[in-house]
């Protein structure tokens, strides 16, 4: 109902192929970006947004969004299901750690990039089976990645710089002499990285490479006949996807946890990211963010709710119950979404938007 598209005509293909062809959308997006980069820090400065918000909500949300983006490229766009996301994140994290550790004067961003590239390389290797096998055969195969990588990082001391516990503590994030210490500065750092990479991803999926992925996903035979090379396309998807996951992993270690152990990147994390994709919406950049937000916030609200129950109606829940309830909630949500809206929150948003554009008409 707030859309006023009449008169927004396109007189060049450049205009027509913008990311946000509708003016109102452009404004809306600009507003969100401004809010994220300026509004939030301002609120924090005013004391409205607490440190907890940064460390427990905003930063992890952004990092998971990036990882989800990665998996979405592989699963949502290229149609290759993977259960090894966490492994790629681990590679990114530990690679970056080692680059920082062993090459002094290594710029942090370069370290992250190299970390991502390592993840990409691993991705390509473990993507090879996808040429022969599809569907959940592949999914099962990717579990190999998950277990093997984590095992490697645990067993091969070199990766963890021979720390007895296998736990590494990531180096400080420093750029141009500035150290990102405060939770807010870390948030801003992550935000910048994620925004840029999200933009790049969006561009990829709306150009030839993105079309090649979707073609393989929707009808691989036809794609082949048209001249897309399945091998190249799939491996490219694996590489790009793993790169994103790798960088996400690096941020996970450097900007979020600070200290991580290989076991931190377990199958559970992989599933969590997969859930973000499913709930957010496979094959949608926006969906990656929505999904991440949803999964990050649900447990928080769940806990608040349970505490509310305990305090108000004094029913004492056994300890640790919340975690198991969390599991149940996630599980049922996944099933719910797969049944009701397989394209996730992104599709819901899209439908709502269409309604707004046609308002007052129903369709």
């Amino acid at each position, binding site marked *: 109902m707030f859309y006023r598209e009449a008169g927004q005509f396109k007189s060049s293909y450049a205009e027509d192929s913008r990311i946000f062809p509708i003016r109102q959308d452009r404004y809306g997006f600009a507003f969100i970006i401004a809010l994220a980069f300026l509004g939030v820090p301002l609120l924090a400065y005013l004391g409205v947004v607490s440190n907890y918000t940064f460390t427990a909500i905003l930063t992890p949300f952004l990092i998971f969004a990036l990882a989800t983006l990665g998996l979405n490229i592989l699963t949502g766009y290229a149609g290759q299901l993977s259960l090894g996301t966490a492994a790629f994140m681990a590679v990114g994290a530990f690679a970056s750690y080692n680059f920082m550790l062993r090459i002094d004067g290594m710029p942090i961003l370069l370290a992250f990039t190299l970390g991502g590239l390592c993840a990409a390389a691993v991705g390509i290797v473990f993507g090879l089976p996808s040429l022969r096998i599809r569907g959940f055969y592949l999914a099962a195969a990717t579990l190999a990645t998950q277990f093997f990588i984590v095992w490697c990082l645990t067993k091969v001391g070199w990766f963890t710089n021979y720390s007895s516990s296998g736990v590494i503590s990531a180096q400080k994030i420093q750029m141009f002499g500035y150290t990102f210490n405060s939770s807010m500065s870390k948030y801003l750092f992550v935000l910048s990285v994620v925004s840029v990479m999200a933009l790049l991803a969006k561009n990829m999926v709306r*150009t030839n490479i993105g079309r090649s992925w979707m073609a393989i996903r929707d009808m691989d035979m036809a794609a082949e006949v048209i*001249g897309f090379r399945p091998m190249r396309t799939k491996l490219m998807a694996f590489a790009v996807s793993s790169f994103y996951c790798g960088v996400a992993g690096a941020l996970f270690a450097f900007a979020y946890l600070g200290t991580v152990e290989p076991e931190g990147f377990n199958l559970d994390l992989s599933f969590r990211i997969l859930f973000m994709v499913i709930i957010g919406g496979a094959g949608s950049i926006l969906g990656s963010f929505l999904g991440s937000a949803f999964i990050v916030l649900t447990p928080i609200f769940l806990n608040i709710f349970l505490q509310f129950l305990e305090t108000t109606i004094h029913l004492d829940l056994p300890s640790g119950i919340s975690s198991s309830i969390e599991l149940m909630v996630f599980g049922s949500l996944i099933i719910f979404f797969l049944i009701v809206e397989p394209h996730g929150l992104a599709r819901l948003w899209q439908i709502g938007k269409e309604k707004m554009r046609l308002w007052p008409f129903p369709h």
Partner: protein
Amino acid sequence: MDSERKIGDVVLSFENISLSFGGVKALTNIGFDVREHEIRAIIGPNGAGKSSMLNVINGVYHPQEGEIIFRGKHRRDMNTYESAKSGIARTFQNIALFKGMSVLDNIMTGRNLKMKSNFLLDAIYWGPAQREEIEHRKKVEEIIDFLEIQHIRKTPVGRLAYGLQKRVELGRALAAEPSILLLDEPMAGMNVEEKQDMCRFILDVNDQLGTTIVLIEHDMGVVMDISDRVVVLDYGKKIADGTPDEVRANQDVIDAYLGVAH
């Protein structure tokens, strides 16, 4: 473009092609040729091996015996990528569009072999990448205009009616600017009007772009009207080959078609 369409010499020919799936023979000693700029039809009753033949031509299937001569080069079989590279495009019997994409994007995919920019440039979407994208968009828009599907430009193909989907698929094939176009039952399941349109498009393509067309069709009538030469297959064997009139007169053909009375 020459104003008068003339049939050139042989571009593609087959010599006793045989193809079988685990013992089941799909094609036996098929041999025929395709000339430049002509409309060549392969007809035959259901299960005559028409589609298999098409799949052999662009390398989806690999015959066990026989020889293919393509642009003078003798070869055992084709492969999909090469044949696409060397200007063979096709449509499929049961539509093989990319359901998740809009009409525009589907046709854009047809141009991938003509695109140079790599994924890094794509990612930045700046300068050459954008320019290339736009210049290909122009081409695609011309095809959309040619096929008269402007009004569905941005619709996801999943939502389109069958007839339109066929049209879009043709568009995707045309986007590759093929020298040889393989059409697998382009008019199957269409109503009369849609069929007429499709005929018009096929003829226009062949006429204005000088594209060589090999088409499979079930509907005898249509084929006879538009094609220059016809091959008739039955149970994987060639039973006739010649101009529509010759074929129409051929006894085996008549039997074959009466045989499968439908």
